[in-house]
């Protein structure tokens, strides 16, 4: 256990936990906020995990996740708008 793993654990519990709670209850827009929050926090979490394990090639994953979660969240905003 090093400091980066500890920071990752704090980010999972304190960051992803509330984000997943937001995605699990309430109206669709509230869940979308939780989704965007979860995506951003996961990117930071993966950066910290790449540093914790000392493997810089793991950084490809958060790099792709930023772009994909951006497009995915915009798709959801489009779908929510058309549904009403």
């Amino acid at each position, binding site marked *: 256990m090093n400091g*980066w793993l500890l920071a990752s654990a704090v980010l999972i519990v304190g960051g992803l936990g509330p984000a997943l709670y*937001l995605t699990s209850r309430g109206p669709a827009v509230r869940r979308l*906020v939780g989704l965007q929050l979860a995506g*951003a926090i996961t990117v*930071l979490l993966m950066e*910290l995990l790449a540093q914790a394990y000392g493997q810089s090639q793991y950084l490809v994953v958060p790099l792709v996740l930023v772009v994909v979660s*951006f497009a995915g969240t915009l798709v959801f905003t489009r779908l*929510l708008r058309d549904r009403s």
Partner: protein
Amino acid sequence: MSSLVHVVGAVLAGLGVVVVVAAAIAAVWVREEYVRLHFLTPVTSLGAPLVGVGLGLVNGWTLTSATILGITLLLAITGPVLGSAIGRVTAQLDGVVEQESPE
């Protein structure tokens, strides 16, 4: 000197984690949807740069730091765009703005 840079980098990354956790808890805490949207921005515009700069200091002048900088820039650019898009959907569903976006 390098150990001081490492310590500063670790402190900055830790501050970034604290900011992100505080923003996430606050986003759950508030009751109004429009206020909740405000807590998305500290994650991408404050927490992510703090973590990115901290990791960059720890890793030094390497391709790893360049990758982390790229990720941080992408997060900082896409975060507010997504926040405004979600805000627009919320306003459209509330009937505050018109349903159809201008073509």
